[in-house]
């Protein structure tokens, strides 16, 4: 009796200490983000692009329970589809208003989304459906997604070579705001587009029949099937949406970059930040992925005030490890 009460007191003290540590960490993060407002604002925009890729990963995870490693390379393929369109198909055009790109980009973004969506649905039909039919394990599917990722990257390199290329871009002045804050117009465009897509996805998930079927299947696939939902169709929808988001994320990532450079490792290099965002936000939760991506984006950009910018992916990884230490299910993860 005495022993259990003593244990209880100890666990209470521990829980309190853990809470105190989490509050301290949150305050430290705010101070860190406030140290350089310019960088942190950049981080919010960067995070909003990451969010699109991260939501795709988390949607697939919610349904199939495996980590889709090909998401990064789906982004690459989308970005290259846009590159192809901008440089070989659509006419050259002067920069649109304050932006570094011309109107063709507005056509290229939907096309890159369509290209990546077709690729994603193709992956589902050719690889993942067959693996499920064979009752392959979840981790086998993750490895298959690694194989697909390598193949996509190889394809991109075969067609476009490994050299760094650039979207057509003109240099433009940044907007200046009081308090010595400067924002590139491109960043506003990228953030706006990402937000628009996220809201569209939210409406799709909550207001349409397809969205409701997706959520039902994610919650309980057996029950969903029993109530007459065609889970195969739901999966094709989900892959399509994840692909479309990846395509948009890849293209917007190029536009976010000051020099609009594009290279075959573009997407694979983002995998660590992407998965950090997904895991920090609670894997399987699209809203958590969005919030996690903003947190990771701000951490990565704000860290450049203290460490060389090349360390950004390591910073994302570090933030993920620290969050997991205190909250093994992420910040907004509910189910296990």
């Amino acid at each position, binding site marked *: 009796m005495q022993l259990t009460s003593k244990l209880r007191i100890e666990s209470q003290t521990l829980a309190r200490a853990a809470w105190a540590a989490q509050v301290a960490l949150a305050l430290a993060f705010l101070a860190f983000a406030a140290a350089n407002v310019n960088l942190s604002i950049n981080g919010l925009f960067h995070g909003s692009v990451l969010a699109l890729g991260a939501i795709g990963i988390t949607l697939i995870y919610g*349904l*199939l*329970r*495996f*980590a889709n490693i090909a998401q990064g390379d789906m982004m690459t393929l989308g970005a290259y589809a846009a590159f192809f369109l901008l440089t070989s198909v659509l006419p050259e055009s002067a920069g649109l208003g304050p932006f570094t790109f011309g109107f063709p980009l507005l056509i290229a973004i939907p096309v890159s989304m369509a290209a990546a969506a077709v690729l994603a649905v193709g992956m589902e039909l050719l*690889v993942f*459906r*067959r*693996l*499920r*039919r064979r*009752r*392959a*394990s*979840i*981790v*086998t599917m*993750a*490895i*298959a997604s*690694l*194989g*697909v*990722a*390598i*193949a996509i*990257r*190889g*394809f991109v*390199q*075969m*067609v476009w*070579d*490994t050299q760094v290329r650039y979207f057509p871009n003109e240099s433009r002045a940044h907007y200046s705001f009081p308090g010595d804050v400067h924002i590139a117009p491109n960043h506003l465009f990228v953030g706006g587009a990402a937000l628009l897509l996220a809201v569209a996805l939210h409406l799709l998930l909550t207001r349409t029949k397809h969205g409701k079927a997706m959520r039902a*299947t994610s919650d*309980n*696939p*057996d029950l969903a099937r029993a109530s007459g939902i065609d889970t*195969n169709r739901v*999966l094709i929808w989900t892959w399509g949406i994840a692909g479309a988001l990846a395509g948009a994320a890849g293209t917007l990532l190029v536009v976010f970059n000051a020099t609009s450079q594009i290279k075959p490792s573009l997407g*694979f290099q983002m*995998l*660590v930040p992407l*998965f*950090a965002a997904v*895991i920090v936000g609670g*894997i399987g939760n699209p809203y958590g992925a969005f919030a996690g991506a903003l947190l990771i984006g701000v951490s990565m950009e704000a860290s450049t005030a203290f460490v*060389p910018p*090349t*360390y950004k*992916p*390591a910073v*994302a*990884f*570090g933030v*993920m*490890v620290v969050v*997991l*230490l205190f909250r*093994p299910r992420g910040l907004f993860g509910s189910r296990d």
Partner: protein
Amino acid sequence: MAEFLTSFAVLVGVYAVFALGLNVQWGYTGLFNIGVAGFFALGAYAAALLTIRPPLSAQGEDYLFSGDLARRMESIPVIGALDLWFLIALAAAAAAGGAVALAVGAITIRLRDDYLAIATLGIAESVRLVFLNERWLTNGSRGVYTIPPVFEGLVEPHNYDRVYLGIVIVIFAALFCLVRVLLRSPWGRALQAIREDEATAEASGKHVFRFKLQAFTLGAVIMSIGGALFAFNIRAISPQTFTPLLGTFIIWAMLITGGSGRLYGPIVGALVVWGIWSGSQFLPNILDALPAFIGDPLAGVLDALGLPNVRFFAIGVLMTLVLLYAPDGVTPWLSRLRERWARPPPPPTPTLALTSPPPGARSASSFPSHPIVIPA
């Protein structure tokens, strides 16, 4: 040709060591490591930094750190004469990889399977960034290139590759025997029980977390030794050496192709995949030898696509196809061949667990979460 075959065999041996480490982690325990390149680089750099000679001021190098182990140990009897510093460098590499694996594994293995995968990717990326950015330690992107050869005083330089092949074979054989003994011990059977069904292993009193952490660390130690072997082979490394393709992807392709969860999978896979990989450099010559009306267009296509890019694509396709159509890899075919030749057919071996289906064939029901299984 003999030189090509020797250096080919050395790399097969080195890659077989990596695949062996990955087999311990994935093949036997079901731990998903997509950051092999991280341990590869850790081992290579640990061994290199401990043994490189002081920076050459004439070349304008200004990195501060050089272990120069060979010279420091020269005066010690036996060790100095027999170049035993090499073994110390291997041990240091093993310790570096093992320590990192233990630290990161302790945090992430308790969590979901996928988190470990991401954590290993994060380690690989972070390790690469540190080696790239901390110039004082690693000379940044220029890399370290004064790694001394093993048995320098004892072997003539033109024989180095052949002697080194011997060293690689001995070390691979030692690690292979160690893994074989460990996996057939109760410890190894516990790992396979965990791979097959974690909940059941837990229920029968196995400390799943501890076993997984041990297996992860053992695998990482083996990979780091592989990294050290690699470093003493080419004797010049830089962060660009450890690309995801040659550091991680190709090793996965080797293990999957050879057969994961099979004792001989790593060596068979390393031989097959590295054979395809380095054989493909003769593809232009082969196309040249073909009649012009077939060879020329094909050579043109290959030229336009770029051989390295075609190889990259082929590795990904090979991996996916093997997972789809031959999830056990090629090793079962080999053992079937052997059975056909051997008369009478050998009785079923008592080590059932070792020939049980690899993780690829696990039934979906053995997972705690609920995957969608759609009937065909």
